[in-house]
């Protein structure tokens, strides 16, 4: 299944091995049948943890139950999830370049007008909307991930024109990337001291703390997603420049 990892496009779309085709059709069918049977056999009275969450929502500091689950009840999961993101960023980041600044602007002679207009008009709106999403996360659907994703989208748009370059390996970028994790861990462990247990928010400050964590998370997620995107672009560029070098020689 994973032995032949074809990269080129010239192969057939599916493995021609009839055996695996037939077997998988059969088993997929079986799987479907079995799981559908489960779904159908369910009596539907199970409400999961919904009542419990509704009971405790008052104590969580936010009113949106999903945010409450994410950042209070199951904050530990979220913390580790940020770590997952960081792992991938780490794995993907190019080898470090210390000298380039975090952010720089390059004057490009030939501009794509449509792109420029889009950048000019949409980006600020997206940023504001992201800020709203972040804020609104406390009481209705929204939150750090949504905001971060939006911001990352905006940055993709920004970097489309090669006008702006971010050095994701600069000190600044690194600090921003780990910011959410650091804040999360710091708050979490500090709360052991104050409240006696990990990530136990004091009732009075819980909303504030969650907002703080969410804000930091937004920054880190934005940067992480942007860096993931840029890594593909960068590697394309590198190969292109390599190609050029080679042709010159």
């Amino acid at each position, binding site marked *: 299944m994973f032995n032949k990892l074809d990269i080129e496009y010239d192969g057939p779309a599916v493995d021609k091995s009839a055996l695996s085709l037939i077997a998988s059709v059969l088993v997929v069918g079986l799987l479907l049948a079995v799981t559908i049977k489960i779904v159908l056999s369910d009596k539907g009275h199970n409400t999961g943890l919904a009542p419990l969450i509704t009971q405790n929502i008052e104590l969580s500091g936010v009113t949106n139950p999903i945010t409450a689950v994410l950042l209070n009840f199951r904050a530990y999961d979220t913390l580790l999830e940020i770590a997952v993101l960081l792992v991938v960023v780490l*794995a993907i980041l190019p080898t470090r370049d210390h000298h380039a600044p975090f952010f720089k602007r390059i004057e490009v002679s030939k501009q794509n007008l449509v792109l420029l207009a889009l950048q000019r008009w949409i980006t600020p709106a997206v940023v504001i909307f992201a800020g709203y999403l972040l804020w609104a996360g406390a009481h209705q659907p929204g939150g750090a991930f949504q905001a971060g994703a939006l911001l990352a989208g905006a940055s993709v748009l920004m970097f489309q024109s090669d006008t702006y370059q971010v050095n994701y390996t600069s000190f600044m970028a690194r600090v921003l*990337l780990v910011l959410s994790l650091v804040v999360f861990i710091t708050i979490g462990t500090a709360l052991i001291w104050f409240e006696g*247990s990990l990530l136990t928010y004091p009732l009075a400050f819980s909303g504030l703390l969650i907002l703080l964590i969410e804000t930091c998370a937004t920054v880190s997620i934005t940067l992480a997603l942007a860096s993931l995107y840029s890594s593909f672009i960068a590697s394309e560029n590198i190969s292109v420049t390599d190609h050029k070098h080679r042709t010159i020689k």
Partner: protein
Amino acid sequence: MNYLSSSLLLPAIVFLPLLAAIIAFIIGRNRLQGLINISFSLTQFLLVVLTTLLFLDEQTDQSERYVIGGWGAPLGIDLIVDGFSILMLALTGLLTLLITLYSASYFSDKYNASEKSLRFWPLWWFLISGLNALFMSADAFNIYVCLEIIGLSAAALVALQGNRAALQAALRYLLVGLLGSLFYLFAIAILYRSHGTLDLMQIAETASHSFPDKVAMILITIGLLLKIALFPLHFWLPPAHANAPTPVSAILSALVVKASLYILIKFWFDVLGEATTFGASQVLGALGGTGIIYGSWCAFRATQLKLLIAYSTVAQLGYIFLLFPLSEYSMGVSSFTGSASQAAVYFIVAHACAKAAMFLAAGNLILAQGNGEIAKLKGIAVREPLNVLVFAIAGISLIGLPPSAGFIAKWLLLTTAFESGQWWWVIVVITGGLLGAMYLFKVLSLAFSTDPAVVESPTAKSTAPVSSVPVSSVMTTVALILALITLALGLNAEFILNISNTVTEVNGI
């Protein structure tokens, strides 16, 4: 907080490596890099030792719980430790300390690896924290997150070498890991649907012989088998383990596959014990048995040293899977008690130490030789006697010869097989040991043989492989320590069994 309890230290064990990862990421390339990492690993080790000691001191019949966020089980996430997980934590702490020491040399400028070290250290610490978090998690979904941390960071570490083979192996490893995790996630969804909770203990309380539970068990089993690399699903393991940098290979073989195994054991025996069947356990055993034979055979035929060791992992995992058919199966429930579980626990520990030692020694030999070809190892025993010795000791443990941890493990396994009257597993185990001896001594006899052309003529020294670098003494010492631990574990098994006993008796969650 008037007295220190082992459970209070649990968050620290997870967060300390995370902190280390962050610091390693931020400070980057630094002269103190090695020292900082070593001191982190030392702190973590001491922490784990303290936890273990406290845990043993408490002598509770119950497993220890830590409630995160003050919410409690169904709503929040709990951390939980029992004997088995404490043992796994201790093992992780120990191996982390030793392999960190090793890596500090391995990724030093001496071997032109400082570029890699930038990526290595943070990923390394993430991997460790993932492992630690996994071993103490009491929440099904949290386990999924931990599995992902482990899977992603492990794949990234495999890719560290940067050559095509390594990248391809990493990609395959990653995809397999993701697929396995998805199966697991699907099972979690089904479990949540029928039980309304994600806490393992609460699931266990309501688990029954019902259809959804069985399907969940099937999905968990297949998903985790994929990650564990049980015999027919092992295809990704040898290239991944063989192409990774040496310390990574060591931790992958020693702990990472064991993490998935740990989860599988937990689900199979504790959480969904009601839903398992005797036939399925026999299937797992049969696959394990075939894996023993097949893995050993492939190891024997391997031409690359690390590939040999990787195949040996496939074989060794097969031994552990004999746990499933051999454990007591009564009243439709199999339980993680008795000598089968002891054997499995001991096998996990023994294999972790021995395999780590073997990979490290092999890494040293490859450094000294400049080449991973087994055929090139001729006469290496003269130049690198200690590393060959370590390799031999580790191999002895893998074969299961006394005095080594592997012997105890095999002894327990054989005892169980006889006690349960399933003598056919005896034949498998014995044959596996003999095949193991074949591949081990294939290497050793090459190492001992002196090629007169190389050894005697003075000019030969200049024609020695150019890429070979003298192996630093730290790296050799670390491997030796691991090998000695393996030996020491063969002298008194009660120590390890005592730690894990609490769970095997109580069957807590």
